[in-house]
């Protein structure tokens, strides 16, 4: 009898152990991949926080499809070789959907693995245009606008709104700035309404830019577009103004930084720079920030609102799809509008969020003001 009881216990335990995966299947597994350690951790950790907060909020309301949401973070340090490991780990852990990766390079490396496993991936921050535009990855979505959107906005703004046809395009030779400048050049030439009169890379950190500034004057440009960051932009603008050139200066997110205004001072007045649309008035945005401050006692970091939006969009899509079947989730993402912290969005057939994007800002009285 005693032995029988023991046998029963062992059998029961074995059953319980075997039942564990079945229990686990009763949660929605929400993978979060990105840089959670290393140099770029500050880009990735806010996304983990966003996922946890959204999961907590959704779980408090009864979860998704009646199941609790379980966040599974995986670290890739923004390194492509670690990203493939992280992706494989998430696939074998049975993630239903994955939020990530953070860096474009890591995302590109991990994507084939998710495609193979047929898992929906949504990045809050990977802006490389080819990720969606190549059409290779129907399972990839993102809540941030791709890099070329900024250049497109800049070109349209310069040609249509400012009415300038001859444009000098400069960049700082870095990946980000050169990418912006090359897209700008491409859009100007494709559009056929304007022309690129000068395309140059400047040396970052050089002691002065007077030769480049003279070259802009000599090219007969009516406007300058610059791809790069604020230190070079402020030097170029200051030297242009010193040399009595008042051409409009149109630039990117790297220049839409208060340091630019602080450094360039009165010469910053009138400079245009594109950046993410101002969403600070949205109720869900405010809610997201408040939740973060309450939970972690600090303001959130980079890509937090995009990650918060992506978490909401993914969980909403599962709910709307009525299952964790990837094809149904993708369909829901493409057809159902969802209110998020970056606005009311749905996704186009390539995976880019409609209703997310850039606005043009202008420095007025020492502040960037969004131009409507």
């Amino acid at each position, binding site marked *: 009898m005693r032995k029988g009881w023991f046998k029963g216990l062992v059998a029961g335990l074995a059953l319980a152990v075997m039942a564990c995966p079945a229990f686990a299947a009763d949660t929605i597994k929400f993978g979060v991949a990105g840089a959670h350690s290393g140099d770029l951790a500050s880009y990735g950790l806010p996304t983990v926080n966003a996922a946890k907060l959204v999961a907590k909020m959704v779980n408090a309301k009864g979860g998704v499809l009646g199941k609790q949401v379980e966040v599974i973070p995986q670290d890739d340090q923004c390194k492509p070789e670690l990203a493939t490991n992280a992706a494989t780990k998430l696939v074998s852990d049975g993630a239903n959907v994955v939020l990530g990766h953070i860096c474009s390079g890591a995302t590109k490396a991990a994507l084939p693995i998710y495609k193979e496993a047929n898992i929906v991936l949504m990045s809050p921050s990977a802006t490389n245009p080819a990720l969606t535009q190549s059409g290779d990855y129907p399972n990839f979505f993102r809540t941030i606008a791709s890099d070329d959107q900024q250049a497109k906005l800049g070109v349209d703004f310069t040609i249509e709104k400012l009415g300038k046809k001859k444009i000098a395009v400069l960049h700082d*030779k870095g990946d980000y700035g050169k990418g912006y400048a090359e897209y700008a050049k491409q859009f100007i030439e494709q559009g056929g309404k304007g022309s690129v009169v000068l395309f*140059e*890379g*400047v*040396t970052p*950190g*050089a*002691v*002065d830019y*007077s*030769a*480049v500034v*003279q*070259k802009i*004057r*000599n090219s007969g440009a009516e406007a300058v577009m610059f791809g790069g960051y*604020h*230190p070079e932009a*402020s*030097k170029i603008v*200051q*030297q242009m103004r*010193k*040399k*009595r*050139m008042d051409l409009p200066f149109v630039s990117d997110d790297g220049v839409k930084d208060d*340091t630019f205004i*602080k*450094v*360039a*001072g009165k*010469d910053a007045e009138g400079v245009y720079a594109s950046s993410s649309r101002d969403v600070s008035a949205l109720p869900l945005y405010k809610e997201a920030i408040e939740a973060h401050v309450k939970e972690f006692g600090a303001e959130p970091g980079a890509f937090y609102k995009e990650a918060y939006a992506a978490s909401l969009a993914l969980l909403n899509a599962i709910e709307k799809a009525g299952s964790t079947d990837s094809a149904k989730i993708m369909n829901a993402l493409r057809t159902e509008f969802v209110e998020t912290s970056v606005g009311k969005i749905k996704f186009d057939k390539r995976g880019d969020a409609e209703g997310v994007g850039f606005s043009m800002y202008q420095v007025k009285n020492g502040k960037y003001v969004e131009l409507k």
Partner: protein
Amino acid sequence: MDWQYFWELFFGGLTRGSIYALIALGYTMVYGIIELINFAHGEVYMLGAFTALIVAGALGIYGFPAVAILIIAAAVAVIYCAAYGVTLEKIAYKPLRDAPRLSPLISAIGMSIFLQNYVILAQTSDFMPFPNLVPQPEFLEPIAHIMGASEVLIIVTSAIAMAALTLFIKYTRMGKAMRATAQNRKMAMLLGIDADKVISLTFVIGSSLAAVGGVLIASHVGQVNFAIGFIAGIKAFTAAVLGGIGSIPGAMLGGLVLGWCESFATGYISSDYEDALAFGLLVLILIFRPSGILGKAKTQKV
């Protein structure tokens, strides 16, 4: 040929070249005396700019006129940097004077990194706006599109500094002692020249010139941060080697040649290749004249 454009580039290159020359003088003087490439020299230039920024900020509160601020800030920067230069020499180079030549070189790189990090910690790693301390007078307005007051001031100051330095070395007792020490330190010491004093003075002069350069350039460019010394230092070092390291007229000529080369390369070819062409020129000159444009080929003493 578009002469207007040519002259614009010419004066742009002249400004740039004067900046390089001002910093290159410090490299070349130190090398001439103790055969050390003082890699921390660019950082002294950066410290000069920062000192002036702090002084200018403080004086600005009391409403001093811009010219007074410029002169006081430059004076404080010169004193401060001269002190830094001498301290640097006493701490990092003097104990290694008889060590193998590589040791003080590494020590110099170490000081460069130390000073950059010191500024990051004590001040900031951000870019700081530098007030424009050079007022634009009315009579320069017609040529404002070619060069502004700050550029004129840079060129004039560099010319004066170089002329004064040349006269000092040629005609004063101390200048003679410097030349003697440069030629043969042991012999100079035997003849009663205080070599330590000469070396200290070299650092004082070199650092002062770098400080003046820092103030003028920061005022011209309108911003400073902890890293500005690195690129300026590398370019000035290139200028010194180009002209013939150890030679004072060589540093001036090297600076101007480098400045013009970069300016014309940007203007007529592409600024993408600005650095490539500047350093290409350096390689060419070193192939055909290994000791630089004005450098004297040293005969090995047996």
